[in-house]
C-alpha cells in the first residue's frame, strides 16, 4: 500500500487548519473502511491522512426534540440505539444491514454519506427522515438539506476545506412510521441493487382493524379496511438509493399521497409514480427495467411497513410480514 503520513488532531479547528495547510495532498479519514480500501485499490493516493478519531464529542447521539448524530457515530451504535429504533426506525433498518459486524463497528455515518456512493445505505433513510447536515470550514458554517448534499456518484457539495460536523433529523410528526429496505443478493456484505426508504405520518394511531395487519390477510383486504376507516396520510417522504446518479426523493409520488386517504389503488399509483420518476441505470448488480419494477414493488411494501409501525402497538408479538 502507498505510504502516507497519519495525523490525529484533537479538535475540529485543528483538523481544519491541517486541511488548509496540506490542501489537495491531504484526505480525511473516519473509520477508514472506504478510505483504506480506496487507497489499496489506488483510487486515491493522499500524502497525508487526517484522522477524526482523536476529536472528542463527534461520536455522540443526542435526542431532545430533534435527533443530533455526530459524524463519527458508528453504524453499530445506530443499530444498537433503542431510541433510534423507536423514533427513526428507517435508520436502524439501514445500519443493521450495512457490511458486517466488523465493518459496522468501525464505519461511521459521516463517512458513509461523505463517500457518497450511490449505494450508500444511510443516504435514503436520511433523505426520507428529512435530515440536514452541518458543514464547517475555517471560514464558517453552513447547514444543508441532505437532498442538496449529493451532486453525483462520489460527489457532494462538501468543499476540500470543509468537515461534516453534525447530522440533524427533525422530530417526526405524531403517528409517524419509517422504513428502509435494502434489496440485495446476499444476506450480508453486499451492496444494494436498490435502497428504498419511506416515511409516513398518519392522522391517527389507532384503528379498529389493526389486528388485520398482524394476520396473513391479503394486502388488498388490509388496505380496503384502512380505507373504510378513512386513514389519511398527513406527510410522506419517499427516498431511493441506486435509482439515479445520487440518492433521490420521489417528490411526484409523494405529492400524490400527501393529504389523501390511504387506499390500495392510491398506493399502487404512488409506487408506479416513484418507479417512473427514478432514473436507474444498467449495472452488474441489476438492469434498469428490473430496478424500476422493484421500486414499484418496494415503495408499496415500505409504505405498508410504515403503516404497520404506526398502527400496530409495539408490544404486539406477531410474525414479521414481508409485505
Amino acid at each position, binding site marked *: *500500500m*502507498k*505510504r*502516507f*503520513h*497519519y495525523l*490525529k488532531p484533537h479538535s475540529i479547528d485543528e483538523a481544519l487548519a491541517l486541511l488548509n495547510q496540506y490542501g489537495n495532498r491531504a484526505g480525511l*479519514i473516519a473509520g*477508514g*473502511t472506504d478510505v*483504506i*480500501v480506496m487507497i*489499496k*485499490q489506488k483510487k486515491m493516493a493522499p500524502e497525508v*491522512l487526517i*484522522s477524526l*478519531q482523536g476529536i472528542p464529542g463527534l461520536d455522540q447521539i443526542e435526542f431532545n426534540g430533534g435527533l443530533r448524530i455526530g459524524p463519527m457515530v458508528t453504524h*453499530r451504535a445506530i443499530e444498537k440505539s433503542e431510541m433510534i429504533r423507536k423514533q427513526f426506525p428507517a435508520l436502524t433498518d439501514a445500519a443493521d444491514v450495512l*457490511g*458486517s*459486524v*466488523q*465493518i459496522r*463497528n*468501525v464505519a461511521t455515518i459521516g463517512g458513509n454519506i461523505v463517500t457518497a456512493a450511490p449505494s450508500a445505505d444511510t443516504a435514503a433513510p436520511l433523505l426520507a427522515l428529512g435530515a440536514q447536515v452541518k458543514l464547517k470550514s475555517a471560514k464558517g458554517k453552513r447547514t444543508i438539506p441532505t437532498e442538496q448534499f449529493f451532486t453525483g456518484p462520489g460527489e457532494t457539495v462538501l468543499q476540500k476545506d470543509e468537515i461534516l460536523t453534525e447530522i440533524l433529523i427533525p422530530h417526526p410528526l405524531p403517528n409517524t412510521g419509517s422504513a428502509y429496505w435494502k434489496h440485495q443478493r446476499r*444476506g*450480508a*456484505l453486499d451492496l444494494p441493487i436498490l435502497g428504498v426508504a419511506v416515511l409516513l405520518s398518519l392522522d391517527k394511531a389507532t384503528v379498529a382493524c389493526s389486528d388485520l395487519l398482524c394476520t396473513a390477510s391479503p394486502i388488498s383486504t388490509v388496505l380496503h379496511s384502512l380505507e373504510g376507516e378513512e386513514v389519511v396520510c398527513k406527510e410522506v417522504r419517499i427516498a431511493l438509493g441506486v435509482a439515479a446518479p445520487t440518492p433521490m426523493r420521489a417528490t411526484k409520488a409523494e405529492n400524490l399521497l400527501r393529504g389523501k386517504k390511504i387506499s390500495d389503488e392510491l398506493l399502487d399509483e404512488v409506487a408506479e409514480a416513484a418507479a417512473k420518476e427514478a432514473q436507474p441505470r444498467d449495472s452488474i448488480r441489476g438492469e434498469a427495467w428490473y430496478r424500476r419494477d422493484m421500486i414499484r414493488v418496494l415503495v408499496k411494501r415500505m409504505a405498508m411497513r410504515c403503516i404497520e409501525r404506526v398502527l400496530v402497538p409495539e408490544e404486539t408479538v406477531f410474525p414479521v410480514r414481508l409485505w
Partner: protein
Amino acid sequence: MKQTINFILNGETVSVEIEPHLTLLQVLRDKLELTGTKEGCGMGECGACTVLVDGKTINSCIFPALEVEEKSVTTIEGLTDAQGNLHPIQKAFVEHGAIQCGFCTPGMVLSAKALLDENKNPTEEEIRHGIAGNLCRCTGYLQIIQAIKEVSGQ
C-alpha cells in the same frame, strides 16, 4: 518517519515503532510475528483478519495501526489461558468439526467470542447475523453454528 504506538496486546502492554501507513494486520503479523491472524481478501470483506479492539470485532486488514493507541487488542493467540488450554469456543469448534482448512477459524472464533460476550444466549438467526462477516468456504457454516450453540449452552 516512524511513529511509536503503545497498546495492550492480549493483556500485555506493547510498544512498537511503525511506519504510519501500516494496517493493524501488518503490525500484528510482520512486526509482532503473531501469524494466527490471517489475510484473506485484504479489503474488509472476508473476515479472516478479524481481531478484537476494546472487545469489538474489526477487520484488521483495513484498520490503521495508529488507531489502536492506548486500546486493547485481542488476537486468537490471546484466547488460550496461561497453561495453554484452548478457550471453550475453540474446544467446541474442534469437537464439532467446525474447522477444515482452518484459514477462517481465528477470525470466526473471535467473532463468536464477541457475539457471546454481548449476548450469552443468541438465537440461530442472531448467530448467523453475528458471523455474517466471516466467510468459510469449507464447512458450510452448520458445524460452526452448532459449535457456537453448544458454548452458549443450547
